[in-house]
């Protein structure tokens, strides 16, 4: 095999890998920008503090602890830092500190975990304080150099100016002196009204390489002497490898090693992935045991949960039983939502290099520290001898918060010490070995009095708990609070960012935990997606039963949440709600991940009952809008994710095996199905809400309610699969 084109990228990767285990890696690497003539003879500047390195050439390198997976958190966090730093935005670049460095430095960058739309909202305070401290230290260093008072100095766009003398010093000239100073203890952050970078629709920092193919993902890693692995884990959960016939594939071209991985998987290592994958597909394996689960059979268990005596109560108020006993009219319906798989475009992968002294892993991960812990555990080496180099993620959606594929890569690499091995999953493996968004059903009920006033609401969710499956320690008193996203109590600080915003006189939200033998996982939007369908389709059904306008009916119960009312009113106004134009519209308002969101969908259903989603107007109030154009991108993308699930998403288990193993059977939305999305970003300030997930929740309910407006039929079971919507 010849290799006619040699890539310079290889050289880069090898050197970054070799330097990886030392703490000096960051400072050394960031300083590589220093190539101005004046700086050429000097050693690179040390970092100003953990968050900021400034080169002698004034290049500002901002350290980003959270993972970028398309959601734009990298650019948003850099904006926060640059703002407090008073940096020149045009000189900003970013880099990831490694999880190993975080541990070695007493977790100076705190949490690396990237999920729950938390990237900015849970780190903005300490990230901004870190940047402000760096700025203060640089001003102090400049003042020291001039022998003047700090109060006489100002700073703007990376330049410190002494007012009285007019002297100026750029950041690069004082960064080294600043790094020697004590960190200030008294830090005041800028008032939001003075922001010039935060709140601006600046371009992403990571776009250029994504349009040329230069952007490197985990799947693209090439290390010197690297071999490739493909894996096949038991297609049935909890099954193990009984036997496999390595000799059947050992003679196939390029095959280097055939091996068992843990107790439930086999892998082939070869000189190319294509060959490794062909061999693993051809490898005869006998599996033993496992849960031969059928989704269809689970329906009965879910149904039983809908009316079971026992259920955990997530939120309640008033006396709901009396409200239903005295109701003039009761609306009741059952909604049914299937399993989903994350299906990020880049299938799982990790590259590992194991030696007797160290274990290094290159991988796309939403949780660098968990990946590091997995590497340590799988390698059997102390965590201080392991390191993880985070790669850009080709999508995460919650799937890459798990580290199963990291542990596999290390176990495989351990069989060939000194040889880097890239484990790449096939799409089929990715679909089969998911942590699935659980199926749930809900019985939703509302009580109306004689005048059409809503007197009681009862939602009984039946189904799997994600926390019970992957974080059982988070289950308190038998209750999984995450199940109640968007329906939860505002009084519990752990659920306040996921709380119910309607004011109901009497209500009870319950969950009957019913657990199938399926690995559950956090899936972009998580339970808010399901709960918004339950709540907001019920509200629509109730409005119709009460003979009231769905907008007015909702607003009548949002009296205590003016921000919810505002986003709902905004989409109604922009969409032409209530106008006599013959369009069929549906509404949804929901609060989750700390943000207020609403949507109005416009649909057409033709004579054959075929759906076309024509237009969506969406509004979001995330408090502070760090980058409005990226919020728009997330809102647009949220409709693709949410409507893909509504239209097609369904993972079906037969005899324990996933039936939809690639995009030909696990279909997702395409361009032709994309409605025009108009996004209203309406930050009201004063709080920090999430962006990547909350809008997904409003996608399906708005469309489902519009379908009712168009047809008089309610869709209560997903996916839609373009069934005839004119058939009741």
């Amino acid at each position: 095999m010849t290799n006619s084109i040699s890539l310079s990228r290889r050289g880069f990767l090898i050197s970054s890998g070799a330097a990886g285990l030392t703490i000096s890696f960051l400072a050394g690497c960031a300083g590589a920008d220093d190539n101005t003539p004046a700086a050429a003879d000097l050693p690179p500047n040390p970092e100003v503090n953990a968050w900021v390195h400034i080169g002698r050439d004034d290049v500002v390198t901002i350290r980003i602890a959270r993972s970028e997976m398309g959601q734009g958190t990298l650019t948003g966090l850099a904006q926060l830092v640059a703002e407090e730093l008073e940096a020149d935005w045009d000189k900003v670049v970013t880099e990831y500190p490694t999880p190993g460095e975080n541990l070695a430095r007493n977790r100076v960058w705190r949490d690396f975990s990237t999920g729950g739309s938390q990237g900015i909202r849970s780190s903005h305070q300490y990230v901004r304080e870190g940047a402000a401290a760096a700025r203060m230290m640089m001003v102090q260093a400049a003042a020291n150099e001039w022998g003047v008072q700090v109060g006489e100095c100002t700073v703007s766009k990376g330049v410190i100016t002494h007012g009285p003398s007019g002297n100026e010093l750029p950041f690069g000239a004082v960064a080294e002196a600043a790094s020697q100073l004590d960190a200030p203890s008294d830090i005041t952050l800028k008032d939001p009204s003075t922001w010039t970078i935060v709140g601006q629709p600046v371009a992403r920092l990571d776009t250029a390489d994504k349009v040329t193919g230069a952007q490197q993902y985990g799947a693209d890693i090439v290390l010197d002497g690297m071999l490739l692995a493909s894996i096949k884990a038991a297609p049935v959960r909890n099954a193990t490898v009984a036997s496999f016939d390595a000799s059947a594939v050992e003679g196939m071209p390029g095959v280097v090693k055939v091996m068992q991985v843990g107790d439930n998987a086999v892998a082939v290592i070869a000189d190319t992935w294509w060959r490794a994958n062909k061999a693993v597909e051809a490898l005869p394996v006998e599996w033993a045991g496992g849960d031969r689960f059928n989704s269809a059979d689970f329906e009965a268990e879910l149904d039983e949960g809908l009316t079971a005596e026992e259920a955990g109560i997530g939120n309640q108020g008033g006396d709901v039983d009396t409200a239903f006993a005295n109701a003039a009219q009761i609306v009741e319906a059952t909604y049914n939502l299937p399993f989903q798989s994350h299906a990020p475009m880049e299938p799982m992968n990790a590259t590992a290099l194991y030696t007797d002294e160290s274990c290094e892993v290159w991988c796309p991960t939403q949780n660098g520290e968990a990946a590091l812990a997995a590497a340590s555990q799988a390698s059997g080496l102390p965590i201080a001898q392991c390191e993880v180099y985070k790669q850009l993620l080709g999508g995460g959606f919650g799937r890459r918060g798990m580290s199963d594929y990291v542990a596999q890569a290390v176990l495989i690499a351990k069989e060939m010490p000194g040889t880097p091995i890239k484990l790449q999953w096939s799409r089929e493996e990715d679909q089969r070995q998911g942590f699935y968004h659980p199926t749930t059903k809900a019985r939703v009920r509302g009580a109306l009095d004689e005048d059409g006033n809503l007197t009681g609401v009862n939602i009984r969710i039946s189904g799997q708990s994600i926390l019970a499956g992957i974080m059982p320690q988070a289950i308190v008193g038998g209750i999984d609070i995450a199940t109640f996203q968007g329906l939860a109590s505002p009084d519990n600080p752990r659920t306040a960012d996921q709380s119910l915003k309607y004011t109901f006189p009497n209500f009870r939200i319950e969950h009957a935990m019913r657990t199938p033998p399926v690995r559950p996982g956090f899936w972009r939007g998580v339970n808010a997606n399901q709960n918004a369908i339950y709540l907001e389709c019920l509200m629509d059904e109730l409005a119709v039963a009460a003979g009231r306008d769905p907008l007015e009916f909702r607003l009548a119960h949002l009296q205590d949440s003016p921000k919810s009312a505002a986003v709902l009113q905004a989409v109604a106004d922009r969409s032409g709600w209530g106008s006599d134009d013959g369009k069929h519209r549906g509404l949804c308002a929901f609060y989750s991940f700390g943000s207020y969101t609403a949507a109005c969908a416009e649909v057409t259903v033709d004579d054959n009952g075929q759906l076309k989603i024509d237009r969506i107007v969406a509004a979001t109030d995330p408090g502070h809008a760090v980058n409005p154009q990226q919020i728009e991108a997330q809102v647009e993308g949220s409709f693709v994710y949410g409507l893909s699930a509504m239209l097609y998403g369904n993972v079906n288990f037969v005899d324990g095996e996933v039936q939809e193993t690639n995009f030909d059977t696990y279909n997702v939305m395409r361009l032709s199905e994309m409605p025009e999305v108009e996004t209203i970003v309406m930050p009201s300030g004063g709080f920090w809400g999430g962006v990547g997930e909350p809008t997904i929740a409003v996608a399906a309910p708005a469309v489902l309610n519009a379908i009712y407006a168009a047809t008089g039929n309610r869709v209560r079971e997903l996916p839609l699969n373009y069934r005839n919507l004119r058939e009741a």
Partner: protein
Amino acid sequence: MARLHVNGQVVDVEFDDDTPLLWVLREQLGLTGTKYGCGVAACGACTVHIDGMAVRSCVYPASAIGAEEQITTIEGLSEDGSHPVQEAWKELDVPQCGYCQPGMIMAVAGMLNNNPEATDEDTDTEITNICRCGTFQRVRRGVQLAKTKM
């Protein structure tokens, strides 16, 4: 040993007859801009051009490529990211995670090669690439912006 024309270069490369072009590009030629998403021609992440036509390289055996056929990958679409589609993509910040975008860009560039006046409707029917991040709206706008730069 087969001779391929890739991005204007002539390369001699050895591969098993059934190896899809995708893996020859990625693994033998180091052109990792072309992505693996599904391997069954369902997602478009692996789209490259053969003589200017967009093809899904994950199901295209490298051995089926003719001696004179010109393969263009995302790395060869332009020298410096200045192809009108790439320029439009940067201007509109189309990519999110970006993993699908080399394929998306090659599919769009291929469409515009054949149909420089492509409308939104043409885009909707011809561009069937999957983007799980959901960049479709900006892709649609990007096509129209790219047209003005051709």
